[in-house]
């Protein structure tokens, strides 16, 4: 039986990808950010997960303005890094796990989630930057990835409660997959940031940390946070944090915190990082 053994939360700022790709990840600016991922890199090397359900959002890369899926799940064999305007990142292609992906997709639809299935797409920094943070610069990613793209750009994005419930359904789906697989779920994006308008640059250390607090233990409070609160407190792009709720929902009733890191700033953004395991 496949099992979700851990959940990882992480920001996915494009500049972190640039830092890795240009070998700057230990300089004065980026050093303190990457230091907070050292624990996780060592832990991942030990854990050797087989598959990651990687919850992220597409930033106008695979999907243009024409089509806006609320929840899209990648069921393909492999995905190339997207060209976001300055050429694709020099990272390996991402290998999918089509068997598990289709299994999850089918189970979710039976479970009344109105998924969009995607076979071919390019994946942008939202997906590849967390891989770089957690695995460095290997020739080949040491894990297979199931991309789960969430619309957090055009409003309304899915509610926090819906995201949490999707996580719960993903847990059920994974646990009904017969093969023995060590599966992790990652929720990416956030934390506080606003990339637009006169209020650009807003950060909120206090709220971000309150949010991370809520994901540890057995509280269900975070699923009820309304969109307007993310927007007011954490900037227009802070809404990406709803994707962490999918990760949290997939960990079950209670979680334990294995590692936690917070740093301000990275470019326009507050960096948050959390490693959780389910408490059975």
């Amino acid at each position, binding site marked *: 039986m496949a099992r979700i053994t851990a959940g990882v939360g992480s920001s996915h700022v494009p500049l972190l990808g640039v830092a890795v790709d240009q070998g700057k990840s230990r300089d004065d600016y980026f050093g303190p950010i990457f230091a907070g991922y050292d624990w996780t890199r060592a832990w991942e090397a030990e854990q050797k997960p087989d598959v990651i359900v990687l919850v992220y959002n597409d930033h*106008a890369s695979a999907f243009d303005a024409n089509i806006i899926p609320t929840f899209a799940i990648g069921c393909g064999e492999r995905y190339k890094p997207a060209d*976001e305007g300055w050429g694709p990142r020099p990272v390996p292609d991402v290998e999918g796990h089509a068997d598990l992906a289709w299994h999850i997709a089918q189970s979710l639809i039976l479970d*009344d989630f109105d998924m969009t299935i995607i076979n071919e797409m390019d994946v942008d920094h939202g997906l590849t930057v967390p891989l770089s943070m957690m695995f460095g610069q290997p020739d080949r990613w040491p894990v297979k990835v199931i991309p789960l793209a969430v619309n957090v750009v055009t*409003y309304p994005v899915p509610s926090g409660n*819906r995201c949490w419930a999707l996580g719960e359904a993903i847990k059920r789906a994974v646990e009904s997959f017969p093969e023995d697989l060590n599966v992790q779920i990652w929720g990416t994006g956030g934390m506080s940031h606003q990339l637009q308008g006169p209020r650009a*640059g807003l950060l*909120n250390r206090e709220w971000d940390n309150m949010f991370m607090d809520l994901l540890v233990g057995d509280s269900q409070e975070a699923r009820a946070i309304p969109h*307007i609160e993310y927007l007011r407190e954490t900037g227009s792009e802070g809404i990406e944090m709803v994707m962490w709720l999918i990760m949290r929902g997939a960990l079950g009733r209670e979680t334990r915190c294995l590692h936690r890191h917070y740093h301000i*700033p990275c470019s326009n953004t507050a960096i948050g990082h959390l490693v959780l395991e389910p408490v059975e």
Partner: protein
Amino acid sequence: MTDQNDRSVQDIHEYLAEFEDIPGTRVYTASRARKGYHLNQFAMSLMKPENRERWKAGERAYLDEWPLTEDQKLAVLARDYNRMLDLGGNIYFLSKIFSTDGIPFAEACSTMTDMTFPEYRQMMLDGGRSPVGNRSIKGGF
């Protein structure tokens, strides 16, 4: 299984109205997405290297291939990002424009504020813009 917590469906009008109360922020709602559809599709086209070449060779001519309003075209040519937001642009689409210009995200953001890029950068190093007083126009908190 999808409704483990109480949930009362919020009216879409109230939901959207609240977004207008956030200072210095245009939430990318449907009405903005509709207005900015071709603007965003134009920006998206710059993800292809061959389009970037043609765009750099003649911005106005490239823009004229798209059904944008004159206002939208002028805002693009002037790199007036606040104006582009007002005209329905979304920053993730518009980022293809400043990426093509070779301008970092933070610098592009600074142009939408009342700061220079060095001032903006310093604000970020100092902990970013505080939410205090920046959460609600009506509430002033």
